[in-house]
C-alpha cells in the first residue's frame, strides 16, 4: 500500500497479495470471549514470554491498556490451540524469541527491558521467521480489539462508535438538493443502436 501521499502516484505499485499458510487455519480457530478463561497451550514461563511480547506489540499509553493487560495473549493461546499448525507455530515463536533473548542478553525475554524486547521482536520481522511474528501480531491484535475495555477507549479516543454496528445509529438522510447541478446535465451514456 502506498501510504499517506497527497498527490496521485506517478506509477501505481503492484499490490502484494500474500496468503500466509496459517491464515488457512483461521476458520476453525474462533474462540468466543466467554470461553477465554485460562491458558491451554503455553506453560507458565511461556505465558510470561507471550505476555511480554504482547505488551511490546501494543503498549499502554494514555488511557489505552496494553495488550497483556486485557489478556490478548491468552486469547492468542486459546485460538492457536484449536489448530495443529497454529499450536506448533505459536510454540515455535515463543521458544525462538526466548532463545534469542537468552543468547543476546543472558536472561528471559520477559526480563528484558522494553528497548531490548523491541529490538528482538524487530529482528523477527525479517527473514523466514517473520511469519511467526505475523501470526502473533494478528492474534494479539484480534484479542485486543474485541476486548470491551479497549473498545471503550477506541470510542473515547477516536470517536468510532463501537456499538453502532451491533445496535445501529441515526444518520443524515440523502439530500436530493445536492443533485441540482447534475440533474441539469445532458444524458451521458453511449447509445447502442440495437440495444
Amino acid at each position: 500500500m502506498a501510504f499517506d501521499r497527497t498527490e496521485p502516484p506517478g506509477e501505481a505499485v503492484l499490490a502484494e497479495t500474500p496468503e500466509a499458510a496459517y491464515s488457512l487455519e483461521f476458520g476453525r480457530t474462533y474462540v468466543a470471549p466467554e470461553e477465554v478463561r485460562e491458558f491451554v497451550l503455553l506453560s507458565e514461563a511461556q505465558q510470561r514470554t507471550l505476555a511480554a511480547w504482547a505488551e511490546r506489540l501494543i503498549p499502554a499509553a494514555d488511557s489505552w491498556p496494553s495488550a497483556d493487560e486485557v489478556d490478548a495473549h491468552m486469547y492468542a493461546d486459546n485460538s492457536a490451540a484449536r489448530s495443529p499448525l497454529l499450536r506448533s507455530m505459536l510454540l515455535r515463536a515463543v521458544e525462538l524469541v526466548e532463545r534469542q533473548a537468552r543468547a543476546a542478553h543472558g536472561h528471559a525475554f520477559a526480563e528484558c527491558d522494553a528497548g531490548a524486547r523491541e529490538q528482538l521482536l524487530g529482528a523477527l520481522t525479517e527473514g523466514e521467521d517473520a511469519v511467526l511474528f505475523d501470526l502473533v501480531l494478528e492474534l494479539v491484535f484480534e484479542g485486543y480489539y474485541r476486548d470491551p475495555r479497549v473498545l471503550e477507549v477506541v470510542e473515547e479516543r477516536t470517536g468510532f462508535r463501537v456499538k453502532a454496528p451491533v445496535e445501529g445509529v441515526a444518520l443524515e438522510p440523502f439530500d436530493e438538493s445536492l443533485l441540482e447541478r447534475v440533474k441539469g446535465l445532458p444524458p451521458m451514456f453511449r447509445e447502442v443502436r440495437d440495444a
Partner: protein
Amino acid sequence: MPDRADPDVLVIGAGAAGAALSWRLATKGASVLCLEEGDWVDRDSIPKGHLDWEVRGRHYWNPAPSIRDRDVDYAVTNAGENPVDPFMYSAVGGSTIGFGAQYWRLQPSDFRTRTLDEFGVDWPIAYDDLAPYYDINERESGVSGLAGDPTGPERPQPALPPNAMGATGRRWAQGFERLGWYWWPQDSAIVSRDYRGRPACINRSQCAFGCPQKSLSSADVTYWPPALEAGVELRVRARVRRIVLDRRGRAAGVEYYDAEGRLHEQRAARVVLCAGGIGAPRLLLMSATEGHPDGLANSSGQVGRNFMVHAQTLVAGRFPDSTEAYAGTVGAMSSRQFYETDPDNDFVRGFIVAGNRGYSPLLTALQFREWGDAHHEKLEHHLDHDATVYLCGDDEPEEHNRVELDHGRLDEFGLPGVTTSYTLSENSRRMVEAAIVRGTELCMAAGAESVRDFGVAPGFGWHLLGTARMGSDPGASVIDADHRAHDVPGLYVADGSSMPTGGAVNPANTIQAMALRAADRVWDGRDD
C-alpha cells in the same frame, strides 16, 4: 432410484441466481427442486449480532472458503501472476449473505464491447432484453435509490428512497461537485424503509459481516421465503458430485451426497446450474463422461476460462473530521464519469468511482500493522477519519485466466477443489492506474489531507465471472442466449459464469436479472 417424483426443473445452488430463478419458475407453475451444498445461515452466528464481529468475520465467517474451511466448503487455491482471493459462501443465499449490495445495472454499451471497442466479446443479448428483468429484480429485492441518473438509460423509480448518506456521503457529493463530475446516490439492495416484512436499515454498517435484522437484501431473505411459499423444494447440505445424462445425451438429473455423505440420484426434466463463477465450471468439469472427456458442455474448451474479477482497487482518504466510519451502507455516492472508452486514454473501456465508507478498528490496525509505541497514534490518526473510494473497471476476458479442478485438495467427500489462475491484462493495469489517479482526485476534492491506495492488483475476488460464458458461437462459448448449454440438451447455466464480459460495476443485480430471464427461457422452452 429416483428420490421422488421428478421435478420439472432441478436447480443447483441456492445463491443469488438460484434463488431468483427458482422463485420465478415456481410462480409460473413449474415444480422446482433446488439443491444447495451449504445450509441456512444460523442467524445467531451472524457476526454483527455480537460486539466481537470483526474477529468472527476473520474466522468462521471468512469469505474465503479455504480459510473458512467448513465441512460444506471446498478448497480454492489461487495462482497466476496476480492471484485473487475469491469471496464466496456456501449457504442459502450464497455470497449475498455478506455482499455490499451495490445494485448497478450494466450499460447498453457493455453488451457490445467487441463491436464498439474491440474488447472482449459481444453478448448475444442486449440491454433491452435484460431491462424488464432488472425492473423485477429491483422490486423483489427492495432496492433503495433514485431514478433520473443521466449516465444511464431511463428506468422506473426504485421501490425505496436512497439510503442515508451521513457526513461521508455529503463529503463525497461535495467532492464530485467540486470536480464537476457526474454522480448519483448509490443504488443499494438494502431497504431504506420497512419493506415486505423487513425492517429499514438502521445504518449498522459493515454489511460484509452479515445483517442480523434482514435489511440487507440477501437472497435468503428476499427470494427464498416466497419461493418456498410458491412450492419450491429446497434441500440443503446436498452436494452435487456430477450432472448425469440419459442415453440420448440429454441432462437427466444429478448425483449428490447428503450431509452424511450418502449418495442420492435425482432425476429432472431440466437441470439449471447456478453455482457461481467458480462452482459452475467446477461441476461441469467434474461431470466429464466418455462422450464429454474434457467436461460437460465443453466442446468449445471455454469451461473455466475467461475468469474475470473486475479491475478493482481502493483509494482511502484521510480526512480531518469524523467520517462516521461506524455507520451507513457500503455505497454512498458513485460516478460513471469515466465509464466509457475515451480515445485520450491508453486503455479501452472504463471504470466507476464510488465513494464508500471507512474502516473498523481491527481492520485499521491490521492494515497498518504498526506495533510498539507508535501503535495507538497511528490508529487514532486513521480510525474514523478514513473513507474509501472503490474503483471498479471492465476486465478483459482472457483464456489464460481460468478455473481448474484441483485433485490435490479434496473436500469432505473426496470431491476435487479448485485452482484459480489470474493475471491482470495490460489494459486492466493501465485502467487501474488511471482509476487510482481519479480516486485520489476525488479524495482531495472531498477534503482529504492525504490518501493511500491498494495498488493495481489487490486480489479482490468479490466478483467471479465469465467461466461458462454465453455466446452465439458454440465454438467460443458454453451456453446460448437462452442459457442452454450448446452441447447438452436440457442443461442450462445461469449465474456469474454466464457473463461474457463484466461491465464495470458490481454484478449482483445483473446476475439475478439474468437468472430471472433464464427462468422464463427455461419455462418457455419446456416442450423442447
